[in-house]
């Protein structure tokens, strides 16, 4: 229907731009500022400029080389973040996949109740669970052990994952299970050879969700872990704040590095994430 130029079309595009440009600005300003600091020299960082006098990548060099006493454990800490995130992702995937399979395909009696329990846990804000969780981990003797954070993250991530996987499982045709049973499959064979291969896109979405949740988490790391070489990077960044003369540009450079993996993973798995996670939201 392109009739070429028309005032109505221009007006529509203008209106859209009127929305789009502020949205872009609003979204990017904090990120831009983060980058601004990260590529500024020590002194000019705090000069309040909109663009650094002499932009430099040396801050990243300092961070990656651990050449500042605030950063002596950078690699261990980013390693901790990675370890906790990956462990959370894998364990949550395991727990949630088994539970969703049992509830959806094996038609576990009482499956609804388990699902409801999971939902309730999902809705209660994690910050409220943090205080008793802290004492619980202390009672279990897990404080200052990275497992405390991994298990806490699994607890928080699993409910939503179970729910999403169950919704996705319900879409698989029943006849597949029946055909497999007639072919002679045992429950575990059905799980391994039919269910899991067909659920791969949802599994990717759910595993990534749990992984990112753990990587991005601050509060629980802050409460449960405190030793310099055991804290995840998020907590280390928070520790920067405690002193007044902290090297802010290094903090921002570290923060930038810290923020890269989630952004990259999100963009890489965008298709899975969006369809996988909003599938449960809009009940059509």
């Amino acid at each position, binding site marked *: 229907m392109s009739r070429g130029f028309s005032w109505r079309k221009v007006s529509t595009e203008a209106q859209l731009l009127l929305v789009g440009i502020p949205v872009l600005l609003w979204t990017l300003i904090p990120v831009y500022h983060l980058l601004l600091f990260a590529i500024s020299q020590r002194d000019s960082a705090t000069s309040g400029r909109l663009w650094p006098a002499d932009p430099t990548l040396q801050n990243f060099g300092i961070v990656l080389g651990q050449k500042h006493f605030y950063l002596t454990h950078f690699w261990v800490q980013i390693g901790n973040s990675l370890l906790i995130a990956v462990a959370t992702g894998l364990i949550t995937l395991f727990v949630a996949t088994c539970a969703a399979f049992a509830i959806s395909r094996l038609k576990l009696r009482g499956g609804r109740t388990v699902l409801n329990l999971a939902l309730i846990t999902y809705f209660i804000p994690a910050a409220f669970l943090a205080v008793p969780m802290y004492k619980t981990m202390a009672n279990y003797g897990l404080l200052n052990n990275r497992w405390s954070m991994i298990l806490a993250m699994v607890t928080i991530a699993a409910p939503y994952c179970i729910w999403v996987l169950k919704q996705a499982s319900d879409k698989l*045709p029943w006849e597949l299970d029946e*055909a497999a*049973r007639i*072919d002679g499959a045992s429950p575990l064979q059905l799980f391994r050879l039919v269910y899991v291969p067909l659920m791969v896109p949802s599994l990717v979405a759910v595993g990534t969700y749990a992984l990112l949740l753990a990587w991005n988490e601050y509060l629980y790391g802050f409460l449960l872990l405190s030793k310099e070489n055991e804290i995840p990077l998020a907590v280390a960044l928070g520790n920067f704040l405690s002193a007044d003369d902290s090297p802010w540009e290094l903090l921002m450079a570290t923060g930038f590095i810290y923020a890269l993996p989630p952004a990259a993973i999100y963009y890489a798995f965008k298709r899975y994430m969006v369809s996988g996670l909003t599938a449960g939201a809009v009940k059509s």
Partner: protein
Amino acid sequence: MASVSFRNIQKAFGKVKVIHGISFDIADGEFVVLVGPSGCGKSTLLRMLAGLEEISGGEILVDDRVVNDLESKDRDIAMVFQSYALYPHMTVRENMAFSLKLRKADARATAERVATAARILNLDALLDRFPRELSGGQRQRVAMGRAIVRDPKVFLFDEPLSNLDAKLRVAMRAEIKALHQRLKTTTVYVTHDQIEAMTMADRIVVMHDGIVEQIGTPLQLFDHPSNLFVAQFIGSPAMNVFKGTLRRGDGTCRVEAQGIAWPLTEREGGREGQPVHYGIRPGDISLVAPGEGIAAKVVVVEPTGAETELVLDVGGERLIVVLHGRTEVQPEQTVGLRIDAAKAHLFDEGSGQRID
């Protein structure tokens, strides 16, 4: 020997009883079709045989062995589903080999059996494709191939042709029948389409509301339906049926309806004045000159090429007549009907039972 027996089978879903005591036997190598309208229980019965539904009462025997408590995989049956139920993430070959793989069968023997089945069903070229790349008919054949590879005692088919278009259905019917003639495996086939039943079955089991209405060969059901339901269910177009009163006397039997005497052969059953249903198939009525038979007005003429279907009005009652070939008859014309009394059916009005 792979016979199947149903002994007083009952099925209830919660408080709702859907099958009320069904018993019949299937001989080794027989092709039996369970047919009936939606909700009659035929699929449920099949699934109970397959082990996919619990049996509420009665026993099912395969090869003289009670299978009630056996899991599906131990009953030595294979099933072809309406929606084919092919594993989407496996190739055709893997789909067909799956059951053997589960039993950890020898790889070479598996390959042999898959190849044989593929050859029988013309699937050789498709073995490495995925189900999503196949047409409906091809998928159906893969589903059958999967069943054949199992070499089971009984084949079960659950409305396998319902998802196919009309032409394909006709072709697949012939293929399934040919397969049965070749393999001679006992087959239980469920469909709601009575044409499929008539063309494929050795014997048909007509079901309705959870009971068996009649069991017999296709021609038995066609020529001697034992009740009104079977009479009207089997045969297309359906049998013409209308109410009337049975008259005896002057040594002849006839039915009075719309003020006309409809011919019957002599029979023992039935009393004078009994309310009855009179049935005559569209193909058993012929047209004669208006004065020589029962008067009827032509309403619609529907030529289908090889035949002509006529809708006629007799005293307010609609009748359908199927003629071979063409006719000159036009709507609004009056014609005469001649009925072969030997082909007329009589049913009690209350019970619907056949009166012989």
